[in-house]
């Protein structure tokens, strides 16, 4: 196997900073698409966020969805939707808009135990709307407060421009995942929030490593013109490219394994992770670093202008 040594900067011809406007436009376009989708379709909220009950039944053999609906209708418990799940299509997931009482869940359990025997196993979750709204707000506030904390830390350790650029990239990644789930109308549940929060952690981690290199290279470079800064950023990205790619690859190994093998419970979780990881790796190089460069460049020009006049 021949592996390319990305770190050998001489091999990389690509100019990362030249096309930065294009990256901004591309990301802006996807964000716009996501915003439109959010406005038009919204999010497909699972029962963690809208009130109702989700019942998962392990049946242990294949079954007919239509028949299930008919039988549930028979006991006045017609679900809003029935989804077949499980590797062997031996599970049914029922969703109800209303909150089922424990007696009603017992009724459903009774129905299936009678029909398919004792191997039947039932899981149910019910949420009151007040509590779910609280959950979403809590997550939202958490990210906001975490962002402020990160800005403070990075400002102290690095500088304000780095901090804000890193936060923009972080929000960009979180939004990418939300947009993806809105466009494809995938169910948003509590683990999804955990996934978005993981992305937040990963994204900042990934960005800081590149920023750290930019900061280091700036120390040794004689920066006089905007082009000098461009060179520093370009080289820093190239020097950390092998790490950027390898790290996202290894985390992706785990996320893909979770996605394929992890089972229903965390399928959406791992999908959110996948999208976010890719976006996180992309944004560190193509959004965070470029934003910083643009900002730094503007500040330099302004300073020059001031000293000239």
């Amino acid at each position: 196997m021949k592996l390319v040594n990305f770190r050998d900067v001489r091999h990389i011809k690509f100019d990362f900073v030249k096309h930065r406007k294009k990256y901004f436009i591309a990301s802006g376009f996807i964000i716009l698409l996501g915003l439109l989708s959010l406005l038009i379709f919204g999010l497909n909220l699972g029962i963690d966020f809208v009130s109702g009950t989700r019942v998962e039944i392990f049946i242990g053999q294949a079954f007919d969805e239509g028949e299930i609906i008919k039988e549930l209708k028979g006991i006045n418990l017609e679900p809003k939707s029935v989804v077949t799940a499980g590797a062997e299509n031996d599970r049914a997931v029922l969703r109800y808009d209303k909150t089922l009482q424990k007696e009603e869940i017992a009724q459903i359990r009774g129905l299936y135990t009678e029909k398919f025997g004792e191997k039947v196993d039932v899981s149910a979750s019910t949420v009151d709307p007040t509590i779910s709204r609280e959950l979403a707000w809590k997550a939202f506030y958490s990210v906001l407060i975490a962002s402020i904390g990160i800005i403070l830390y990075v400002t102290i350790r690095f500088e304000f421009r780095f901090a804000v650029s890193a936060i923009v990239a972080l929000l960009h990644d979180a939004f990418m995942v939300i947009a993806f789930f809105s466009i494809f109308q995938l169910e948003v549940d509590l683990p999804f929030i955990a996934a978005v929060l993981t992305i937040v952690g990963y994204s900042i981690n990934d960005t800081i490593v590149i920023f750290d290199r930019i900061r280091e290279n700036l120390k040794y470079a004689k920066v006089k013109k905007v082009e000098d800064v461009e060179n520093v950023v370009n080289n820093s990205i190239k020097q950390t490219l092998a790490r950027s790619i390898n790290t996202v690859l290894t985390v992706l190994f785990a996320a893909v394994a979770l996605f394929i093998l992890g089972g229903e419970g965390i399928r959406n979780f791992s999908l959110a992770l996948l999208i976010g990881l890719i976006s996180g790796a992309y944004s560190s190089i193509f959004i965070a670093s470029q934003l910083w460069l643009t900002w730094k460049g503007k500040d330099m020009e302004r300073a020059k202008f001031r000293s000239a006049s």
Partner: protein
Amino acid sequence: MVRWGRVTGFLLIVVLTFTTIGLTTDNVLEDVILGLDLKGGFEILYQVNPLEGETITPETMKNTVSALERRISVIGVAEPEIQIEGKDRIRIKLAGVFDQDKARKLLGSPAKLTFRNMDGEILMTGKDLVENGAGIGYDQLNQPLVTLKLKDPEKFANITRQYLEKPIAIYLDETMLTAPIVKAVITGGEATIDGQRTVDEAKELAALLNAGALPVDLKEIYSNSVGAKLGSFALKNTVKAGIIGTILIFLFMIVYYRLPGLVATITLSAYIYLVLRIFTWMGATLTLPGIAAFILGIGMAVDANIITYERIKDELRSGKTILSALRAGSRRSFGTIFDANLTTILAALVLFYFGSSAIQGFAITLITSILVSFFTAVFGSRILLNLLVRGNVGTKPWYYGVKESEISEL
């Protein structure tokens, strides 16, 4: 020349690490407390509402929790988790296999016992009973019944005198249990409730009475129940995914980074083992999002290795010797890893502080993972690599994934 002292040191550490892992892994896996999403069980969040004319105080919350604890002991669930959330909420988590419908009924019912006359007038309440005084007994026909002791025999004697030859109904909440006719004036302060169909039913009622009435009204606002089978499916699948993901990471590290990659797989194994160990020490519960955070933590640990190894490669390419490349690479990568991990910990801390219980589990796992990875991936790798290099093993750049042609002349 290979210096065998150092190499032996290296081998000793590796053998010791793996022996410890091998000998105690069964133990660790048994000790890990699995969340209810992995082993079945249920979680209920109650909104606590005051009874008429009362208010919710921290005191009533505490009393409610202890009443709930006594009830759970009736169900026989090991290691229940009961938390007070905010001012007026209680979250209960019961993991394991048990009759979930029954548990719910037992937990949520106020269990207020009243003795009423024919007009529904309350003569006596559960508060008149001796605490922990309920038990079971058998009547002449060997039918089970519940025995009660009264605090004030005088009061009960008066009541039975007043209602002699008349029925007194005994209600548990709004359910009439039985309405015995008072046959005689009871002066001894002991009474019985008959009408129990089975011994178990009688035991349950006695236990409920002993647990006492709830001082509040509980409303279920969130519940999540997982069947034991569905839970174990989730566990099996996630563990399988974790193992395969880890093997892929190991292979990648060895193929790409060679000797340091091999060292990384050793320290990563130690990392996985340590995180699980710490989990059992902390008595933390491993949940599905927790496992996900754990696997992600592996990624973070690998990242620390990758950052260091890339630095070492860099130094090698610039023409340094292996030993000084190792030293410089380790030193220069440390700050980067430190800053990157600290920002992630910062984010996790905020999540822990503000998040709900599921998010908190995730945050704890992430923080533990990062801290442990710092020791294994940064210090562990450094020590092992140093022993190898100083032992004169793997002194060619090839072992580090660097080609001779890439090395610039000094």
